[in-house]
């Protein structure tokens, strides 16, 4: 039987959720018991903040001097609960909405999270023309993510991370696809009909009805559909749904 209650209490101390209690520790030749547990508390704070900021580089840049306060409020409310630090920001988007962060901050969060997920997602399974002719059920490839941004945060993020002058914030509807080509994560603005088609496909709609719905709303795209699917296959954005 493990002293799990004891570990929970010590974890709470290290996280800063409970006051440090030095009575469990023996001290050392140069450090007191209080100082011993404080080392772990201080290291936890440094490590978690760095890991979260690394997962949210665009948002951290956008927040500037406020980043430390905001990221720590998130960490205090959402302490890490999985074995990998790669998921430390997994609940940030919901938290940001609940905290009434601005639309552009929420959008930047979505973009940061999409890039991080795409970076380590599985490879797609290339789609052939022969497969397409059979009108299969499709889905986005694991590394592809659709975002409907309300501003140009993707351009701001790219400029900021490359240490270039960022464009001014502009409130505008931006249908975006985040995807990986080779090992590099990229994003691309899509025409709304194309974004809508991919969105319907990814939601599980069958290919025929997704195409019908898009053509009904934007009749002039009908002649382009063949080229679109050729591009989807070449760029590995979609694959046959196997479930």
């Amino acid at each position, binding site marked *: *039987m*493990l*002293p*799990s209650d004891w*570990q*929970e209490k*010590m*974890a*709470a101390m*290290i*996280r800063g959720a409970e006051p440090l209690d030095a*009575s*469990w*520790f*023996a*001290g*050392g*030749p*140069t*450090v007191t*018991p209080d*100082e*011993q*547990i404080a*080392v*772990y508390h201080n*290291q*936890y704070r440094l*490590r*978690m903040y760095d*890991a979260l900021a690394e997962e949210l580089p665009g948002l951290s840049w956008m927040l500037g001097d406020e980043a430390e306060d905001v990221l720590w409020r998130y960490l205090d409310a959402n*302490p*890490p*609960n*999985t*074995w*990998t*630090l*790669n998921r430390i920001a997994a609940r940030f988007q919901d938290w940001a909405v609940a905290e009434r962060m601005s639309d552009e901050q929420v959008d930047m969060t979505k973009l940061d999270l999409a890039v991080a997920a*795409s*970076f*380590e*997602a*599985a*490879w797609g399974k290339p789609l052939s023309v022969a497969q397409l002719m059979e009108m299969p059920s499709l889905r986005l490839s*694991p*590394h592809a993510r659709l975002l409907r941004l309300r501003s140009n945060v993707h351009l701001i993020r790219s400029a900021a991370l490359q240490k270039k002058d960022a464009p001014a914030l502009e409130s505008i509807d931006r249908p975006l696809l985040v995807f*990986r080509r080779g*090992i590099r994560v990229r994003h691309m603005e899509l025409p709304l009909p194309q974004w809508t088609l991919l969105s319907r496909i990814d939601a599980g709609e069958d290919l025929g009805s997704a195409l019908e719905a898009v053509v009904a709303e934007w009749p002039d795209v009908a002649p382009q559909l063949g080229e679109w699917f050729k591009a989807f296959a070449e760029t590995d954005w979609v694959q046959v749904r196997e479930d």
Partner: protein
Amino acid sequence: MARTVSRFAVPDLGVGVGYRVPHYTQVVEERPAIDWFELLSENFMVEGGSPIHHLERLIDAYPVAPHGVSLSLGSEEDPDHVARLHKFVERVNAPWFSDHLCWTGTRVHRLHDLVPIPYTPQMRDHIVDRIKSIQDRFGRLFAVENVSAYLAYKDSIIREQDFLSEVVERADCGMLLDVNNVFVSSCNLGFDPVKWLDSIPMDRVVQIHLAGHSIYEKYRLDTHDHPVCDEVWALYREAIRRIGPVSTLIEWDDQIPSLARLAEEADLARRHRDEALNAPV
């Protein structure tokens, strides 16, 4: 042909370094004269992308050994972590895999730090059961590593070195001896690091870690952001004299230098190793 060491007859891989992000591309393209690379398991327990791309190229070019940080032997098993670790260890097919004698969090809260455990019979039995279980399921040698300690528990009634010795004997597993951790802990907790070495079963050591650490006013911190210091080199030579030729790895995880600088540190380790192996007993 690789020499074999220890009771497990595992290969002596020579002197390696950790495979870290800034060097992924350079290592696989330039193939530097480094004997082997250690893989931080959790970095590669993903589905695809850059980590897997570079992993596949590395294991075609160099011997590797996986080393984890999230097994949390001192707490309950996380089935998701263990399942992914198993898949990764199978993929790289290394002679052993390793993690730490510590706990890194509870089922609810993860600390992502290598927190020491209280050295009690109850904890010893728990750790032995966990190592046996994972070693049996993976069908591969596991090596447990001593951690740097910044605290000691009043409840501990067994010395660390005796605890570790009992664990590896009862679990019948290997040991990853982190010489820098022994030294850092000896400074922080006040014990003789050479006597510590004398208390552990050297025939179970399958790998050694070396690293640099930071010195603060009242304690030393295992930061892996400096060259190896003279005291740790001296302790390394003591260890090699006792163990013989054994796979050695330079850990440098923060303020990561150029690959050329890392190769120099590996060369230095090789010289210390040779000096110790050639010294009269």
